[in-house]
């Protein structure tokens, strides 16, 4: 802390005799979150070490199972499949939505008449309830009714209708497309905001020094955007990796488990097969992966946010 800051802190101490009064304002929200989020997390860990069925779900004492649930899921082919699916899905979505979002942000950073209103309208996909987005893409990817097959046929790219969401080879692709559609606005708006922080003079002096557009992009834009790019990718990873609604509505993990994600498989185990403890174990694996990635995010935001 610098001298100035120390003085400010001391002054504030005098004004507010009891800094701790502040805790009274925070406590209601914090206790609420402890009860409805904190406690469930702990409870979920406990559940994963028990053997909970329909009958014992609300009972006071539940049989202890040790690591049995974890051993079981790691020997479960569907779990492995879901884990791989979640990773493939996340990486594919991240790469494509980031590139498109970046390109759009660059495009709309130019000052033309429609730049602001059109960019505003492009935020729409991000706000639509995901259930609706899922329905929409299910319709577009429909085998006989879907407009996508019609377009591809009229362009002569395919001969017969593709069973997009019914075939195990293409269902994942359909879900990835839908999720990219949701993710583009988020990437675009955050990168747009990042772009506005780059001083214009840098580009001007670079062009005076003879740099071309490509050079100033890689030497000025990309390095100066690094913090933005990092947080967009980390946040994007977290929010893509825990995808649930979209997959559940579009395919429910099918056909033949080909699109199960960790979240949908956990839901299926708990609420369709009533194997609550196995479902909890799968959810905990998902949580641990997210927390590991989350640590990177927290490290990046710590300085300016805390």
């Amino acid at each position, binding site marked *: 802390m610098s001298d100035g800051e120390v003085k400010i*802190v001391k002054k504030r101490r005098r004004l507010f005799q009891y800094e701790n009064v502040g805790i009274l304002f925070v406590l209601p929200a914090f206790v609420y979150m402890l009860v409805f*989020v904190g406690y469930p997390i702990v409870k979920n860990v406990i559940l994963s070490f028990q053997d909970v069925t329909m009958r014992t779900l609300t009972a006071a004492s539940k049989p202890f199972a040790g690591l049995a649930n974890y051993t079981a899921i790691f020997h479960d082919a569907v779990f492995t499949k879901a884990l791989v699916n979640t990773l493939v899905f996340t990486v594919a979505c991240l790469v494509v939505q980031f590139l498109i979002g970046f390109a759009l942000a660059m495009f709309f950073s130019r000052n033309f008449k429609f730049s602001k209103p059109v960019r505003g309208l492009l935020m729409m996909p991000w*706000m*639509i309830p995901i*259930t*609706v987005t899922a329905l929409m893409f299910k319709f577009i990817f429909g085998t006989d009714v879907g407009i996508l097959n019609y377009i591809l046929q009229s362009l002569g790219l395919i001969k017969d209708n593709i069973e997009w969401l019914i075939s195990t080879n293409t269902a994942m692709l359909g879900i990835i497309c839908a999720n990219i559609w949701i993710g583009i606005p988020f990437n675009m708006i955050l990168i747009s905001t990042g772009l506005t922080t780059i001083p214009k003079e840098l580009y001007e002096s670079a062009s005076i020094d003879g740099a071309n557009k490509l050079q100033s992009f890689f030497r000025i834009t990309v390095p100066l955007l690094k913090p933005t790019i990092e947080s967009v990718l980390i946040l994007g990873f977290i929010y893509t990796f825990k995808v649930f609604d979209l997959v559940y509505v579009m395919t429910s993990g099918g056909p033949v488990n080909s699109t199960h994600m960790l979240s949908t498989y956990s839901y299926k185990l708990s609420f369709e097969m009533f194997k609550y403890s196995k479902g909890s174990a799968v959810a905990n694996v998902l949580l641990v992966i*997210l927390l590991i990635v989350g640590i990177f995010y927290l490290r990046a935001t710590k300085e300016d*946010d805390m």
Partner: protein
Amino acid sequence: MDDDKKLTGRKNVIMCVISVLILCVLLFPLYWIVVTSLKTEKEIFQIPPTFWPKVLNTKSYAAQVGSGDFNMFKSFANSFVISVGATLVAVVLAVPASYGIAKYRFRGRKLMMLGFLVTQMLPVAVLLTPMFIMFRNMHLYNTAGAAILADATIGIPFSVLILKNYFASIPKELEEAAYIDGCNRFTAFLRVLIPIAKPGVMVCAIFSFLYAWGDLAYGMTFIIDQQRRPITAGIFNFMGQYGTKWSYLTAFAVVTIIPVALIFIFMQKYIISGMTSGAVKG
């Protein structure tokens, strides 16, 4: 980028045309369900597809106003009650919390902040079973209350993190002036600070509402009667039972989008500010 020079002449026109093309491609899915909801079932399956309904058919909407298992206006009302409830809970709790975090340096402040940050990253899968058990024990299972309490957990951390920046940006002098005028800490907060932070409170209310409106997992897990379920769960049910009745399905989807579209049209500035403040959909 207001200091950026404005493009003029041909370049401006070209950029505008390209931007409209991008808009048409990216928003086509939305246009497509709106148009489909106004077609007859027969026209929907017609090849080549029509890009504007030949016969304007509003029956898909009218058919669902009446009774039946899938009364979409009933689901709409359920969603509305749940979303407004969750928004109230989130705002009432988050506004004081964000003020406390922004203006006071108490012990445990960083830990609490960290708690709010981490809850934003949690997957619903981790919370569903424990919450399910909890709501059953609280006798809230199968009521709107369960969905309200669960949905508020998405709105609260988001709101705290957004609003704390608003409160932090309010100069100390304003608060001091209120004390001189005879306010204490709590009345100064209510009468002086909240009115100043009103735009921030709006952002929080809008996002808390949208999160709750879009929720599917909580609504369908904690509420089992179709008559009480939110509209998202209604759509999901409907898809399972009438999977190919696309005229009804798309009408259902359009009704679900209406409040979102209204918020989007009338409160766009709040939305952009909410999104760029580093917060994201849960």
